[in-house]
């Protein structure tokens, strides 16, 4: 019984055979996750800053975008973009679809977090900075933003972890990331070892960030009252 378990979940021969495939998946996952983090957070910050100009129409559009992308399951968006766009003549490779959708979802959440951070800075900070002769942009860039960003570090980190883990959804549209490699290998080999390898790969990849998130939460602890 014991050896049967090892045979099926930790088969040494299969580990060796499928190690390169899983490793390739790890590379793809890291690539997509890294690009999503950069574009998602940057877009979210830009949207929050755009909202601080308080132009009604613009703010309404940003809120609409953020609400929709926070309310819809990422898998729904993924299927919509992946199967919908080719029918109107736009063909994107599947990894580009995954990157685009996850970036937009991350941007939506980050916009809300950055905006909450900007709002949490007391009005007095604005007034004091303006009274020293700084303009609106100067106040934003040198006084308000540095304080606001500090507060947003833990929630942004946690949200980013949740959304980069969604790279696994790429399996559904055929992106060659870890889960896709693992399930393919599993169906070829008729053995659960590749699935175990995939799970281990995710744990190795994400445990450090989860622990980092935990550390940042205590280090920058804020809105818990």
């Amino acid at each position, binding site marked *: 019984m014991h050896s049967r*378990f090892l045979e*099926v*979940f930790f088969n040494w021969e299969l580990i060796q055979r499928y190690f390169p495939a899983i490793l390739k998946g790890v590379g793809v996952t890291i690539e997509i996750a890294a690009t999503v983090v950069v574009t998602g957070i940057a877009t979210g910050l830009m949207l929050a800053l755009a909202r601080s100009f308080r132009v009604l129409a613009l703010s309404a559009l940003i809120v609409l975008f953020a*609400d*929709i992308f*926070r*309310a*819809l*399951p*990422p*898998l*729904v*968006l993924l*299927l*919509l973009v992946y*199967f*919908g766009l080719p*029918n*109107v*003549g736009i063909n994107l490779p599947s990894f580009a679809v995954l990157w685009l959708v996850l970036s937009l979802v991350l941007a939506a959440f980050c916009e*809300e977090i950055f905006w*909450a951070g900007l*709002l*949490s800075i007391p009005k007095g900070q604005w007034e004091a900075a303006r009274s020293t002769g700084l303009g609106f942009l100067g106040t934003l860039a040198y006084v308000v933003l540095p304080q606001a960003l500090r507060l947003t570090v833990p929630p942004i980190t946690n949200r980013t*972890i*949740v959304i980069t*883990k*969604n*790279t*696994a*959804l790429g*399996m*559904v549209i055929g992106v060659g990331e*870890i*889960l896709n490699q693992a*399930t393919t290998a*599993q169906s070829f080999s008729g*053995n*659960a070892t590749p*699935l*175990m390898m*995939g*799970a281990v790969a*995710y*744990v190795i*990849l*994400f*445990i450090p*960030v*989860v*622990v980092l998130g*935990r550390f940042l939460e205590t280090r920058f602890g804020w*809105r*818990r*009252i």
Partner: protein
Amino acid sequence: MEALRQQFFNLSIMQTALPLLLLGLRQTLVLCLLVIPLGLAGGLAVALLSRSSLSPVRWAAIVGIDFFRAIPPLVLLIFVYSGLPFAGVRPSSLAAVAIAFLLNTSSYYGEIYRAGIESVGLGQWDAARSTGLGYYQTLAYVVLPQAVRNVLPDLISNTVEVVKLTSIASVVALPELLYSADMARSVTFNSSPIILAAAIYLVMLWPIVRLVSRLERRIAA
């Protein structure tokens, strides 16, 4: 423009797909009624374990929480659904979803409860105990009500995430909302059913997303 309308907002296709999608919606709601209470209960258990006075228990709970927060829920689901049969256990897709969600969402709910419990001052514990309440009575009547109030926005927003997450059940062929929509899409070669599903998700979740934004702002202020 016409192609766009035909492809995404085709009313006659939406009309045909609607009954199927409503069946899917019912499955989604049943799924929510199953996994949200499971997650809330599991999370509370995990939170209490992570504050145990026995350090091995405390550490085991924290390692467990971080472990299941590091694994994407879809990976967990597929592991349970197509990995467990190799060990001789063959869960139905509903059982697989329930197990995977219990492990995943308990970890997230657990962290939220823990933050909530830690936000209640130690004086509350001391005062309650000194009136003669036991540990569990103190927890149930004094600490938890305040803790839950303090982290209510997080609890609600995590619940929104859980509802959204039920869409991954479609990958293991559980006929919930997204599964039904995708089936209609593959039959009609048209994306309108998915737009319709998205609209249903929006109607369900948008008010809650708004509510959370408001609650969060009130607490930040």
